[in-house]
């Protein structure tokens, strides 16, 4: 794979209600990413956005984001999945040879719509939708039960992951204040409200508004723009079936395949020892472990051991704040910051090979994973 780097990025500080319009937030992010890379808007040749029409309440919603996204009179397109998928779209445009610099952003404002209710529109309209029992809570509850049962683990084990994530969030200045819990205990997590058994409130991320943007550049340009390019050295993307009743929810086959492919491209033989940092988009504290295991960072059922190493989601992951269409992009930027040595307060020392992932669908139906590396 030709070398493509992430050369600039910007995260709008997320919040439960930022009181900015989506376009104001988006402009702050895209202008911020250009300034971070020392670039002008004229330098961009393509802009890829990620958002979702039914989150935005209007169709072809990217048409409203042209100016704020930096796409005025430019090549522009949109992905309706996760921000991490938009990065692949930008990457492909650059690798085609037809584009140089790509702006990629993800945006949503869940303070404006009932996210869990809207997820009913993700369900199969011929059966699951009329039955009306599937949302993020119930899917997360069944997934957690499957994981605990498969490996003989307890709710306390997942509570430990939640505590780890929320304590990490306390060190991340871009985590939402509601998720920054430096004194949280396992008991508090285990006594928090039941969302859908055995899943509890403090094992589930808090929705927040946010925008993240980054800039991709091919090798020649990247070396001119920054002395700290972070290279995308591998990518894998696989889809499982929609139907939860067809899948083994204790693991993630699509993540297994995606990671296998990304590692092959990047020449990684032993992810356990070679990967220093993993920023993974899990929908719950339990799913963080499932995805980390599927990505080969730990044996099946042994993901809990990763919290002792500190290399899983040092930013707090999505438990630091969950923004649909943005989560995967934020995970990539957090991994980039680690490799650049700029994760102030939560830096993993010596981080030079990271993975970052995005997903869509119930119980992570679809996973996309990147291998990111610093240096030459």
């Amino acid at each position, binding site marked *: 794979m030709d070398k493509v780097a992430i050369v600039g990025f910007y995260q709008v500080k997320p919040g439960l209600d930022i009181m900015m319009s989506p376009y104001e937030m988006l402009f702050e992010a895209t202008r911020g990413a250009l300034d971070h890379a020392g670039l002008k808007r004229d330098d961009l040749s393509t802009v890829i956005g990620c958002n979702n029409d039914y989150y935005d*309440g209007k169709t072809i919603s990217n048409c409203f984001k042209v100016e704020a996204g930096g796409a005025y009179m430019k090549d522009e397109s949109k992905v309706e999945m996760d921000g991490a998928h938009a990065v692949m779209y930008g990457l492909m445009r650059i690798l085609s040879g037809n584009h140089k610099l790509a702006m990629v952003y993800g945006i949503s404002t869940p303070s404006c719509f009932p996210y869990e209710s809207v997820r009913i529109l993700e369900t*199969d309209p011929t059966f699951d939708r009329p039955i009306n029992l599937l949302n993020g*809570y119930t899917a997360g509850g069944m997934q957690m039960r499957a994981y605990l049962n498969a490996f003989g683990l307890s709710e306390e084990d997942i509570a430990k992951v939640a505590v780890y994530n929320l304590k990490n969030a306390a060190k991340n200045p871009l985590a939402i204040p509601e998720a920054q819990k430096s004194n949280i205990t396992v008991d508090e997590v285990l006594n928090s409200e039941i969302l859908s058994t055995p899943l509890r409130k403090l094992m589930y991320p808090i929705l927040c508004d946010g925008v993240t943007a980054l800039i991709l550049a091919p090798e020649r340009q990247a070396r001119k723009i920054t002395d700290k390019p972070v290279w995308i050295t591998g990518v894998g993307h696989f889809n499982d079936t929609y139907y939860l009743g067809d899948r083994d929810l204790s693991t993630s086959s699509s993540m297994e395949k995606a990671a296998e492919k990304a590692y092959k491209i990047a020449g990684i033989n032993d992810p356990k020892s070679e990967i220093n940092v993993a920023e993974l988009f899990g929908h719950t504290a339990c799913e963080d472990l499932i995805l980390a295991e599927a990505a080969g960072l730990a044996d099946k059922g042994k993901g809990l051991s990763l919290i002792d190493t500190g290399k899983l989601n040092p930013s707090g992951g999505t438990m630091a704040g969950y923004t649909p269409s943005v989560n995967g992009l934020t995970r990539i930027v957090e991994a980039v910051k680690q490799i650049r040595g700029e994760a102030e307060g939560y830096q993993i020392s010596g981080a030079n090979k990271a993975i970052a992932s995005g997903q869509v669908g119930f119980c992570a139906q679809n996973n996309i994973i990147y291998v990111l590396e610093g240096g030459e």
Partner: protein
Amino acid sequence: MTLNLDDEQDVTITKGMVRAEFNFWVGIVMDKFYDGLQEKKFIGTKCSKCGKVFLPPRNRCGDCFAKAEDFIDLPETGILKNFTVTNIKISERKSRNVKKDQIVGLVQIDGADTAMIVPVLNINPEDLKTGMKLKVVWAKNIKGHPDDIAGFEPIGGV
């Protein structure tokens, strides 16, 4: 909130909610499934290559990418593969007032290789166990629609 735009027209704005009605053709295979429900029967499909039995049915096997158009009659009994219990409304549009425990089960009908998401009834949540045998409870008014499945209840007591 109601805004008076003029003397004759009131516009009601409901915070955070949109209405987005849409129709879907359910397709040949799901039509057959709905017809089966009308007769209080489960009709699945079978992959022509690997023999996997799907319920709810589909016309293809994603793995083999082969046709799954052979219909197969399935019984009213199955096992509870997974479950979760919540008292939080699933969809604000449909069950705003539901405050009691809703038991969500992944039930695999005997003879099927897939499980479907259905309500579990007539059992205390603390008595639920994966692997337990269940039987369908049909709705009072059958209309050839997924709502005909009122839920599943334990066979022979708990």
